[in-house]
């Protein structure tokens, strides 16, 4: 099948948000990862294959750099700058994640690269964007999550705000950048004009989580983290419970759409002598989590909590699937790997890694489609794996040039 993106070249200088380039690569674009000599610092991000700490064995690198080619280049040197400029003339997109203003200070900002190639779309992913009072601030995943409003509402009320279990801020910024770059591309297709895309990781987090803001705007509740509970209107509903072999999450909701499923849950509880009279007579049709006194939610949470305690994740989920109540297991990565739905849908991807002599199992594509397939073409590149191919084969540098540039540490 033809790829709509195979005509396009993306230069990926982003050390923080490799997922952006990965999406373009998986859609078929020619994505060239421009690494600093010695390799992109993100190659040192764990975990590592078989726990061997090695820049060629980072699972983080593997996961988010599939399908790319890699060249090395020191863009702080004059030769490096000249080469990047030549490359940028052949490119349709460029994405970078250096501190705000860094590319400009090297003479490689949008005015320079876009001046030479007006159709170029250049995206910059930074913690706080290119302008404003925090533009020069440093921001790692933890900082962006804290300043994006996500941490304050996550965790237990009596303990510190909590980060996500896996670093995510730049993943969000990276996929938001993809959308921005594709929007810019739609504009370019019509007008021929490239543009600059300013991506702030903080804003991406705020933008994605802004509905929690409603509690403040509309109700003047400055929403706080609630641990096992979740705010619904003026009330809270418990949504996390321990069970026999782990944890589950359930939404105990009423209304005409949900009543049948909730009654099935109560009948199950009753069949094991665990539904008290009030619960058996509970009016699910007219129960509204948000509008009842909070005590009603508390009583329901107690009853449900007592019941699920004695059941396994698998038993509970099986009944939920059958009866349609909103209960799911909190899957560990092990559970995820063995989850039958994913195998049935052929989700897992196996890629040959000849350099370690192994086949590595990856989570598969984020979506399926009847055309323009989202497809991982090859494993992530080794450091500078495509230097000769790109510099000699495509940019026309001679072998001697390449040796000289390597000798002076530029490549």
């Amino acid at each position, binding site marked *: 099948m033809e790829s709509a993106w195979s005509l396009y070249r993306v230069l990926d200088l982003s050390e923080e948000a490799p997922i952006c380039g990965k999406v373009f690569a998986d859609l078929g674009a020619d994505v060239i990862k421009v690494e600093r000599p010695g390799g992109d610092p993100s190659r040192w991000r764990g975990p590592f294959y078989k726990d061997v700490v090695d820049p060629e064995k980072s699972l983080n690198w593997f996961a988010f750099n599939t399908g790319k080619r890699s060249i090395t280049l020191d863009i702080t040197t004059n030769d490096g700058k000249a080469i990047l400029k030549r490359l940028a003339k052949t490119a349709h997109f460029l994405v970078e994640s250096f501190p705000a203003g860094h590319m400009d200070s090297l003479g490689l900002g949008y005015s320079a690269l876009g001046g030479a190639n007006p159709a170029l779309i250049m*995206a910059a992913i930074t913690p706080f964007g290119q302008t404003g009072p925090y533009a020069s601030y440093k921001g790692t995943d933890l900082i*962006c999550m804290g300043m994006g409003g996500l941490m304050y509402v996550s965790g237990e009320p009596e303990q510190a705000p909590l980060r996500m279990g896996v670093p995510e801020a730049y993943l969000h910024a990276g*996929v938001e950048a993809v959308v921005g770059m594709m929007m810019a591309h739609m504009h370019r297709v019509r007008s021929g004009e490239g543009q600059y895309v*300013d991506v702030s990781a903080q804003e991406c987090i705020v933008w994605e989580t802004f509905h929690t803001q409603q509690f403040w*705007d509309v109700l003047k509740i400055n929403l706080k983290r609630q641990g096992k509970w979740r705010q619904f209107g003026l009330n809270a509903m418990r949504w996390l419970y321990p069970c026999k072999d782990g944890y589950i999450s359930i939404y105990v909701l009423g209304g005409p759409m949900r009543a049948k499923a909730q009654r099935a849950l109560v009948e199950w509880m009753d069949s094991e002598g665990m539904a008290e009279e009030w619960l058996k007579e509970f009016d699910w049709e007219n129960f509204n989590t948000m509008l009842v006194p909070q005590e009603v939610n508390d009583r329901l949470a107690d009853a449900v909590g007592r019941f699920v305690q004695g059941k396994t994740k698998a038993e509970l989920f099986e009944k939920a699937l059958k009866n349609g109540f909103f209960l799911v297991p909190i899957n560990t990565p092990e559970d995820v790997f063995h989850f039958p739905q994913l195998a049935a849908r052929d989700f897992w991807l196996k890629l040959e890694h000849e350099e370690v002599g192994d086949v590595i199992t990856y989570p598969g594509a*984020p979506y399926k489609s009847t055309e323009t397939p989202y497809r991982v073409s090859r494993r992530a590149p080794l450091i500078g794996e495509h230097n000769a191919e790109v510099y000699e084969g495509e940019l026309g540098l001679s072998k001697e040039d390449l040796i000289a540039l390597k000798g002076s540490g530029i490549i």
Partner: protein
Amino acid sequence: MSGLPLHGVRVIDLTMVWAGPLAASMLADMGAEVIKVESRRRQDAVRYLIYPKGEPGEDPWNRSGYFQRFNRNKYGITLDLTTRRGVEIFKQLVLTSDVVMENFTPRVMENFGLDYPVLRSIRPDIVMISMPAFGRSGPYRDYLGFGNSVEAMSGLSSMMGYEDGPPILGGVTFGDPVAGVHAAFAILAALHYRERTGKGQHIEIAQRECFTRFIGEAIMDYTMNGRVGRRMGNRHQYRAPHGCYPCKGEDEWVVIDAGSDEEWDKLCEVMGKPALAQDKRFFDSLSRWKNQDELNKIISEWTRQHDHYEVMRLLQGAGVPAGAVLTNKELLEDEHLKKRHFFHDINHPGAGVFPQVGPPVKLSCTPGSIRMHGPRLGEHNQLILSGLLGVSGDELDALVKEGIIGTEPLVAQQHFA
């Protein structure tokens, strides 16, 4: 909006709640004409979440703040797709549209007689996107899922939590926006493909798959190393200090991530404890990581004396990554976000003013715009049905009489989900 990248693209948005509506609103911000289709039988569930002052009022379905957030810049119509006439009108709409979006369980569109083969027979180059929680195939295809299910099932929740404590679900169900943003670029990629080849397509996002891939390296730590990631609170795998520290005000916090020797030295200097940088317990990064409990205690003693913005400014001024942990209220008042014009107030007739954010990325030539409040139920029935599809005034009256269109629910849901 001529001049915007998606001017002239028409999108039918049947999606509900969060992920789908968010994706559609991204397209709308960039100029697409998005028509949200609900019905008098079934409205978007977030129409029944969070009313001004907590009061549902006479028309709760028009007063929800949540609904405003995800449905700005869209037109809204009602259409009963369980009736023959409703389906006919929908098909007419498909004929004039580029994209159809839905996030029902797979059987719903089939039951309406509006699955992809049908839509394609009406308009061969249509781009359709389906966003079921579990996918259109496999044993769990018909199970309905919400954001919490996506996060829980993906593996993320099991790794989030305080050290040695139980798992915790994030305060924001992150599965939704992740699926939403993926949907947005999948649609753009498909539109681009259509421009090149003339071909439409059907895209399917199983939301839980989308999110599992998002935490790829943690999943691969199991597939390759057999390790199940443990909960680490705010700690980092190998950096310290890396945490969330209490400040002077009530429930006021700051995050600090000073991983390098240089950042650690600066942190000691700013805390007024330069000798600490030479302390054996914290001399190199491995010692700091091993002794992080002690380290965190010392840092907390200092942060407690200041407010969170002050700690942030002092440390960032010295080149140390630090950030005030912002509440919803503080986000709205934050000088940086204000200076970047991130917030926009939008007036909703009947329900008041709601702040809006974004777009999430800034495009220099085509920045997008926030133009319209989220539609009242059936607000644009006449505009779309008569204006666009040429339905006569008499027939419009008949449709109202038969209940196929309208501006009020048949039975007010009053319930989320």
